[in-house]
């Protein structure tokens, strides 16, 4: 095993042990996206009826499914840097920084862990909506691609969170900014409302939101309607987003030397 894989493995194992030993709050986080299903899914259940043109389906819950997957990713990733905030406070971060590890291993371990949690959540959500009659239209291949887009969306968002944790160094500033980002990222996207029914300005803003580029391909994979080209265009947009923010995060971590 290469040194890099050994580093990433040791760190990922640490996150997993934390998850296991704090099972109560971990489980709470896993089920958090379901709140949106309850609040919106059932309240707006009828809103898509007869508007399949805009929603791609007459069933709002089927429409919303891709949005729920993205919300799960958003919740996990935006707080993906939080362990480093606590490590900074306890002095444990220094212990990791004086080890001869690639700084990128810190990012990779969080990314792997957060993506794994998001994938489990995605499967739970898909299982639950299946009980409500929603089937992934593109089958097992589509399911595999959903995991790929989960990872693509998670990488850049995790990087943002880690960059903030290293740059801000304060819990108050970190949570103020993530709290501030959460709502617009969620609402200015196609998570709960289709792009077609948005006013033009909102649609432009939604296209600039990485969440939309995670949702649109996943929505295509769930509903099996619309153009498959979205897999490529949004995939490319996510790759560009990931490359930019992963680079920023690693730079921020390297600059950590006082």
């Amino acid at each position, binding site marked *: 095993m290469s040194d890099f894989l050994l580093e990433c493995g*040791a760190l990922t194992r640490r996150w997993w042990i934390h998850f296991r030993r704090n099972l109560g709050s971990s489980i709470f986080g896993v089920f958090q996206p379901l709140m949106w299903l309850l609040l919106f899914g059932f309240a707006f259940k009828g809103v898509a009826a007869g508007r399949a043109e805009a929603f791609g389906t007459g069933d709002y819950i089927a429409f919303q499914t891709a949005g729920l997957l993205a919300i799960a990713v958003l919740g996990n990733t935006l707080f993906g840097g939080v362990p480093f905030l606590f490590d900074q406070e306890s002095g444990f971060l220094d212990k990791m920084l004086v080890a001869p590890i690639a700084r990128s291993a810190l990012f990779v371990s969080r990314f792997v862990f957060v993506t794994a949690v998001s994938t489990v959540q995605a499967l739970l959500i898909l299982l639950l909506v299946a009980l409500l009659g929603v089937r992934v239209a593109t089958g097992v291949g589509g399911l595999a691609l959903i995991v790929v887009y989960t990872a693509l969306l998670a990488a850049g968002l995790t990087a943002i969170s880690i960059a903030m944790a290293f740059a801000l160094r304060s819990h108050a500033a970190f949570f103020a900014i993530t709290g501030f980002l959460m709502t617009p990222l969620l609402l200015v996207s196609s998570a709960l409302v289709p792009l077609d029914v948005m006013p033009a300005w909102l649609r432009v803003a939604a296209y600039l939101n990485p969440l939309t580029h995670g949702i649109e391909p996943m929505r295509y994979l769930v509903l099996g309607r619309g153009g498959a080209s979205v897999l490529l265009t949004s995939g490319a947009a996510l790759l560009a987003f990931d490359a930019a923010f992963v680079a920023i995060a690693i730079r921020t971590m390297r600059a950590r030397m006082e």
Partner: protein
Amino acid sequence: MTAAGPTSDTAAVHIRDLVKVFKGETGGDIRAVDGVSLEIRAGEIFGLLGPNGAGKTTTIRILATLARPTAGLVRIFGREPVAEPDAVRKLIGYVSQEVAVDRTLTGRENLALQAGLFHLRGEEARSRIDEVLALVELADRADDVARGYSGGMKKRLDLAIGLLHRPRLLLLDEPTLGLDIQTRRRIWDFVLRLRAGGTTILLTTHYLEEADRLCDRIAIVDRGRIRAEGPPAKLKEALGAHIVSVRLATPNGTAADVEAALRGLDFVAGVKTIGGGPGAGGDAGAEVAIRPGTSGDAAVAAVLKTLEARGAPVARLGYAAPTLDDVFLWHTGHELTEARGAETGAQG
């Protein structure tokens, strides 16, 4: 540029004219380290002795690749921390002042994490983990979550983590801060055993006893500068056979003519006055170093007489062989415990 001396590549630590300036909270610059030069030999225990805020921790953090020097040269076994951080990280073990163990992990899991970060694999990792657990006497609690450990156990685990990759240089920042006497003795024991095994140790402390009993050589650090350096015994000897310390009843400083008069006594090796001018507050007085071969009683009587003749009433007078506290006082003009008290008072 200072040309590197012939010893600088073989020395465990070579520091030349090190300066570290921080941006203060209010915009002003803080010179935490202000021109420090040091040479630490392989295999010795070297202590940085000084109050909080003296620049000890900053120096250690620069050596540990956690902070960047503003100016000056730093080498660890010939390697520069800024140029080759990963090479230096493999050579050093760093144990910070605050206990930095992952409390959610067991002792063994903490060590397994460290093994991964230092690229130790399989059987080698397992046997080293058992070895350091035995060394710090934690083997029987290794599989308990660290949250339940006592303060001393957490510190010992922290030391074990710092030792796992067998560093050639161990950096210990205040290794016994806030620990009870028993745990402190135990840690001194580990440190001495490590030196016997060939590890070089650089530690910071503001405990005089720790510096005195543990260190082969010490440097007295105050306000970012080294004020004196050498083996504790030599530093004490340099102050003379005995020290007469006097504190005056009036806290408005020792007049220059009193100092001159004391220096004029033929058995006096040196005089250090203490305390500021009028209104400075705190103790005022002098430390008077006595030449070897002088009768202590005669010296005390003569010092008393001299001071009273100059109208400087004596409040307290002590007479003893020099301690490290005297050495500190001699070189910095204030007592270590006073400086520390003021510092912790400001923090708390």
